Each structure stands twice: as C-alpha cells, then as structure tokens.
C-alpha cells in the first residue's frame, strides 16, 4: 500500500521556530555555551534547554534544514556523474555532508607521516547537525566489559565509570531518538529494558542466507540496532519518562514527537531524512530544544579559544563569524565542548594562557593523546544462490537490518586468537538502488561481457553480492595522537592539527582475522573467493580515521595526572568546562560510538544542571 506523500508532508510541516541568531543579537551572558551541534552538542543542548538552562550553541557550519534540503527520491541519473563520489562530495553527490569530507575547504590538517599504516584520515562536516545528518544510524550500546577493558586483559585503560552508570542514559537516549532492535541476551551485548526499543524490520533475503550460513560456522546473526523509527514514537508515555516533573519539557517533546513520521521504507538514510524518521541532531535534538525558547544558535561561528578569568574559570568562547571574518566573544557560566573529539582537542590546545601554557585543561599533558578509531576491514563475494531472484523491494530501513556482535569472547580471553579485542560485523546485501559502479557485472571467463549477454548478466547477478564489514576495537596507544602543527593555520589563521598514527599487532591481527572469517563465510554461502585474503592484516586494515569513529584525546579517568576529564567529563583543571563528545572515551569498543556519545552527553548535561542549581558556577 502506498502512502500519500502530500498528507505526510502536511503532517510534518510544523517545524521549529527560528532561534537562529547573529553574533550581534546574542545575549550578554548565557548559562551554558555548547560548541558544535552534532550528536554531542545536540544532546547536551537538548538536555540543558529542556531543563530550563539558557544555552548558546556555536556551530562552525552553515544552517541546514533537512526538511527542504534532503534529496529523498532523486534517482542517481538526476545527479552529476551518476552521483558517484568526487573530491567535492567524497561519499557521493546525495550524501548529506555539507562543506566537508576528507578535506574541508580552507581548513587543512596534516599528518606527521604518510607511510602506509601511519596516516590518519579525518572526515568532517561543516553544517548544523554535523555528521549526524549522514551517519549510518547504527546505535549499539557498549557492554560492561567495554568500560573495564584493562581489568579484563591488562591492556589500555579502564573508564572511571561502569556500564551501570551509563545504562539509564542509554535507556533515555533510545527512547528519545528512537532505535529499532531486539534483545539477544548475548555476552557483552546489553539488552534494553522494555519500552526502549522499536520493532526490528524483517530481514532481507540475503540477510537470511548470511544468518543460516553464519550459524554453520558458529557465527551468530541478530537484528541490528539503528536509530530509525519503524513506528511512531509513543508520545503519550515517553516524555514523562524522560522529563519527570517537567511539564513544559513533556509538552514540548510530546508535540515534537508527533511531528516525526515513521520510516516509509524507501530512500537511503545517508542522504538524511526529510520526514524526520531517523536520528539527526537537526531533526531530533534541535527542534524541541529550540521550541523551549531556551536555545540560541549561531551558525557559521568558528570557535577559536575558550577564554578564562584570572581565577582560571572559563568565561566563554571567542569565535569567528565566518560570514564577516570578525571575531566575537560569548559569555557563559559553563562551557561544553562538543566539536567532535579532535576539534575539541584543537580548541583546547589553541586556548593558551599563562596558567595553561600548553593548552587549556592540559596539566596532564594528555590533551590530544590516545586518539582511537575503529579497526576496519571487509570482504565481499558474489553468491550464486542469490542470482536471478524475482524483483523484490529491499530498500527496507535505509541501512542494515542484521549484524553479528562479537562472538569469540571465551576463545579470546583464553588467549587463543592472538589479539585482545573483538569486532562486530555489519552485513550488506540486497537489491539497493543501482549506483554508479555497476558491481553486479562480474567478468566472465576473463572476458569483458557486452551486448545482449551483458544485459542478461546484469539481470542475473544484480542483488547477488554480499558484503561483510568488520568493525573492531582499537586499543589506545601512545603513538596515536594529535597536536598543533607548528606551521600550518586555517584560513582564519587558527593553527591546525597534525596527526600521528600507529596500529598495534592487536589491531593488525584482528583485521586479518576479519578477512579470513569473511572469506570462509562467503564460501559457506556457496560463493567463491576470487583471491584469498592476505594473512598480513597490514594489507586489509583501513587507514586510521577512515572508519570515522575517532574518539579519545581528552580521555576521562580516575585521577588528574592520568586523564583530562573526570568521570563526569568535566575538565580536572577547569571546573566549569566540560567535554561532551567522544574525546572522553578511555577505550573504543567495537560498538559504533555515537549512542555512547549521546548517553554521556546527557549525563554530563545533568551534572552541569545539578552543579548550577547548587550554585557551583
């Protein structure tokens, strides 16, 4: 049954009131300044504004309205070059990234070494909502082991908090943003309490095959969790659970939830979602936060420095209005950095004073240290069983429906694997909208097929490819860090970051294990591997940063000498300065980081509200 698009767009026509301001119209003083508007900034501003704090958000990118700017049903032939990636839009024309990608115009970064395995790649976006407009929406909880890795295997760092500290915030974030998924009861793969998760979409045909053949290899396949509304959110019960005793917040949220449509099972989520059916900061966090009237947003504002008073308290943020090039200052009682892990590091290191000659909040010397990404390696194959299938609409929820959580905890802790940490597998199958690379055309017998045969082959092979993507935990190491490049500045004269990178044997062996496992899995599905994976993981591992899960750099810990922030993501050195983004991660579980970023940002915002109520700043 088709949906009437007109009535749908009417039902979502109520959007947020404008509280976008210019530097000139900013208030003299706010309760809190939040730098950045992505997952971290969105969540922090949401929690603060819903609870009555006056918030100024400073975002370096331009304003962005997913309702009018998302290319929902556009086909690839309506885009330049069939929508394939170019240096201007590296992930394709329709990808919801504005002014970003592996390079940002006028905003370079540098690498200490471009040797194989030493390079770090940094994906940024310069737009309201940051990278949440196009992220993959995979929303996994860290498990109990993931907060105490050192206690388990002696490597890396324990967090000063445990799963139990974060669990209530995972519950809240899931209820707020809407996450589909199910409870599996599997090891270190936490279940969610009743009422947190939305129903999982049915698996696609290829996903069923991957599951069947995985089982034969002892590999579980379960429904994945993604921040997509498979049904409308329950606006009658959730607001009261999220904001007990706060009638205004409940009303604002209940109204906003009704303006989010459920997924209509078409269009790729990476383009963004104009009907607000998946999570983007711009469609989920910012609209209700703005509706409270407590949030002002300055876009095109590039934060340059956190300012201090003589007592060493943060007074606000100096930022450049990119539209005029002029510098402005905003004042607040507390400052939250949510510019994404590495940008937050940059801002701190560029905030030098007599008191902090090596950068703000850096008495430990650890700002910028222990940057982590996710280990990435993948493998694919063509599966004859999936050839010549009848036409099926497999658009589904615009991304994965199933995945494999790490399943070899016992073998690993027994020392049988040769690497210390696990990975999960993201499973790609199906008859997606054909893109510009025609991967469904294998060559035949060493010949480039063409003519009538090509057309037959395309019908036969389309939809028969399976792609297995490994996403693994990296252990923090002293050789992976960023610092200020002594020579290079961006177009506003702000010094830029220089990255250093190194994998340890744990990551390299893990990458090899991924590819070996996936190649066997392809065979178990009846496919053949055109070549065998290289047993040297150095060949298969993606460059550092390229999985775009960079975290660390302002890690949290139990003591000021060994960490930048405390267990509340509060700078040890500056008590009214907080980090809400992935910078505080003391380890980077195989689980994609964003749900945890949001859970911690909510927790940090609660702490700020509590401290402000107590008059601590």
């Amino acid at each position, binding site marked *: 049954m088709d949906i009437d698009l007109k009535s749908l767009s009417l039902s979502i026509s109520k959007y947020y009131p404008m509280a976008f301001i210019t530097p000139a119209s900013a208030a003299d003083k706010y309760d809190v300044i939040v730098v950045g508007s992505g997952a971290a900034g969105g969540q922090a501003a949401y929690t603060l504004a819903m609870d009555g704090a006056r918030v100024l958000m400073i975002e370096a990118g331009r304003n962005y309205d997913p309702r009018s700017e998302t290319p929902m049903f556009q086909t690839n032939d309506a885009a330049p070059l069939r929508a394939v990636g170019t240096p201007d839009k590296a992930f394709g024309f329709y990808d919801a990234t504005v002014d970003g990608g592996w390079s940002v115009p006028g905003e370079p970064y540098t690498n200490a070494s471009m040797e194989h395995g030493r390079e770090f790649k940094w994906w940024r976006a310069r737009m309201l909502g940051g990278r949440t407009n196009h992220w993959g929406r995979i929303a996994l909880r860290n498990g109990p082991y993931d907060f105490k890795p050192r206690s388990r295997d002696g490597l890396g760092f324990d967090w000063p908090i445990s799963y139990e500290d974060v669990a209530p915030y995972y519950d809240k974030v899931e209820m707020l943003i809407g996450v589909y998924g199910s409870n599996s009861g599997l090891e270190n793969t936490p279940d969610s309490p009743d009422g947190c998760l939305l129903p999982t979409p049915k698996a696609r045909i290829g996903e069923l095959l991957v599951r069947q053949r995985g089982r034969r290899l002892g590999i579980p396949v379960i429904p994945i969790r993604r921040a997509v509304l498979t049904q409308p959110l329950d606006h009658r019960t959730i607001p009261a659970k999220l904001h007990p005793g706060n009638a205004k917040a409940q009303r604002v949220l209940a109204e906003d939830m009704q303006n989010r449509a459920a997924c209509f099972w078409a269009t790729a989520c990476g383009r963004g979602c104009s009907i607000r059916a998946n999570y983007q900061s711009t469609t989920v966090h910012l609209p209700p936060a703005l509706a409270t009237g407590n949030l002002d947003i300055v876009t095109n504002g590039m934060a340059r420095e956190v300012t201090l008073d003589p007592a060493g308290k943060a007074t606000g943020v100096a930022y450049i209005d990119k539209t005029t090039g002029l510098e402005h200052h905003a004042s607040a009682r507390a400052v939250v950095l949510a510019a994404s892990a590495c940008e937050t590091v940059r801002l701190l290191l560029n905030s030098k004073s007599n008191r902090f000659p090596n950068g703000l909040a850096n008495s430990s010397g650890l700002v910028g240290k222990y940057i982590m990404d996710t280990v990435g390696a993948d493998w694919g194959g063509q599966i004859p069983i999936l050839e010549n299938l009848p036409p099926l609409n497999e658009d589904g929820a615009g991304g994965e429906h199933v995945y494999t959580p790490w399943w070899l905890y016992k073998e690993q802790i027994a020392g049988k694997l040769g690497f210390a940490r696990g990975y999960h597998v993201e499973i790609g199958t199906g008859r997606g909208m054909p893109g510009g*690379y025609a991967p469904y055309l294998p060559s035949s017998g060493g010949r480039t097929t063409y003519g009538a045969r090509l*057309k037959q082959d395309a019908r036969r092979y389309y939809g028969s490819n399976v792609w297995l993507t490994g996403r693994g935990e990296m252990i923090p190491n002293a050789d992976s860090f960023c610092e200020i490049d002594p020579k290079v500045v961006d177009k506003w004269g702000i010094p830029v970051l220089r990255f250093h990178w190194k994998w340890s044997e744990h990551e390299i062996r893990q990458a090899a294990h991924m590819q070996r496992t996936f190649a066997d899995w392809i065979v178990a599905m009846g496919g053949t591997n055109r070549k065998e994976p290289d047993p040297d993981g150095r060949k298969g591992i993606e460059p550092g940063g390229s999985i775009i899960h960079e975290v660390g750099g302002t890690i949290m810990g139990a003591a000021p000498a060994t960490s930048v922030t405390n267990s509340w993501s509060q700078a040890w050195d500056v008590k009214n300065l907080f980090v809400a983004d992935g910078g505080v991660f003391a380890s980077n579980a195989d689980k994609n980081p964003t749900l945890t970023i949001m859970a911690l940002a909510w927790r940090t915002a609660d702490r700020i509200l509590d401290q402000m109520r107590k008059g601590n700043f």
Partner: protein
Amino acid sequence: MNTPEPIRIDRRVAIKWMLTASAGAMLIRTPSFGGVAPETAASAAGRPATGYGTDPDLVKGYKPGDLWPLTFTAAQRREAAALCDIMIPADDHSPSASAVGVTDFIDEFVSAPYPDNVRDGKKIVDGLAWLDAESTRRFGAVFADASAGQQASLCDDIAPEEPANPDLKAAADFFKRYRNLVASGFYTTPVGMKDIGYVGNVPLARFEGPPADLVERLGLTDEVKW
C-alpha cells in the same frame, strides 16, 4: 560519411609515434594507444577549474552539461554512441544505452574537472581514437561507419581482459572501463533500474520482507524466526 577524422598530433604524441615508427611498425601494426587522440574540444577550450563545489543544491535535477561544458566533438559523440549501443543494445526488455542518454553521461564523465575524470577521461578519449584508427586501418572506415560484423570482430579482439596480443592490453582496459561506464550510465536510469529488477524508491506502509515462497525455495524458512 566516410572520411575519417583528421588526426592532429601534438609534440608528445609525435614523439611516441616516432618511437613506434623507429621500431619499423608504424603503419602496419596496430596503432599505439594514446598516440592518436585528436585534440578534443576539452583541451582546446580549457577545462573549467572547479566542479560543483562542496555545497551543491541536492534537490534539483541535473543534466549532463549543466555543470561543466560537454567536450566531445561531433565525431567522438557519434563513435561513443555506437560503442554505447554495442555494449548495451536494445532488446525485448529495454532500449539501448544511447537511447536513454548514456552518451551524454560519458561525455559528462570525460569532460568533468575532477582529477580522476581528467585521468580516466583521457583514457576514454584515447581509446575512442584508437578504436577509430584501428577500424580505419582494418576496414577503411571509422568505427561508427564500420559494419556490425566489423565492429563485433574488433570488439571481440579487445574483450579478453588479457588479450593474446599484448599490444592490445591498453585497448582491452579501455573496453572494460567503457563497458562499466555504459552499465553505470544505463542502470541508473529509470529504464535500466526497471530492466534489472530494482523496484524500490517508493514509499510503503509496511516492509514485508521477502515472500514466503521465495524464502522456502532457498531453504531459509527457519531463518525468519528471530
């Protein structure tokens, strides 16, 4: 029309030719690849310096030529269209590639300002030039004017990914690259998507998953329960 395109030669190409000639094989053997590209409108007009930028309007539709000028000469376009339709001819299910605008897409591709396009675009233009030169050498007619049988025999020589004659390797690479471009261009159009059996991009009230009979046929019935 039977006159082949006049071949203008720049200095770098001329040197290549001389090298080939000094090997004593210039006119009898297959033309060297990249040695006979006519000066295209692209090199004559100079390419625009930039592409669509990092913040293009994503909602409006674009046609080849909207963002940067197309650069095929009339003769190149004719040849490109002929080769498009050899790659993807009309059949009972769908029209040929050129009938749904794939020639324009190839032109857009070779004319685009991005480094990959400049590099690959040169290979495509060189390949088309080689194909015309080889066709002229063999049949006395440019590729577009050769008979279907002549065209097919030429294509069959360069369809193997590792051709028996190593001199044909560059032409074989071109052939495959061109084939992939044509397929990309064709299967991204509504006509091509329909042909291949892509039936998505329509809003649905529910996502039903695969039909039970298909699940059963593939022996996956047990997998549907989670």
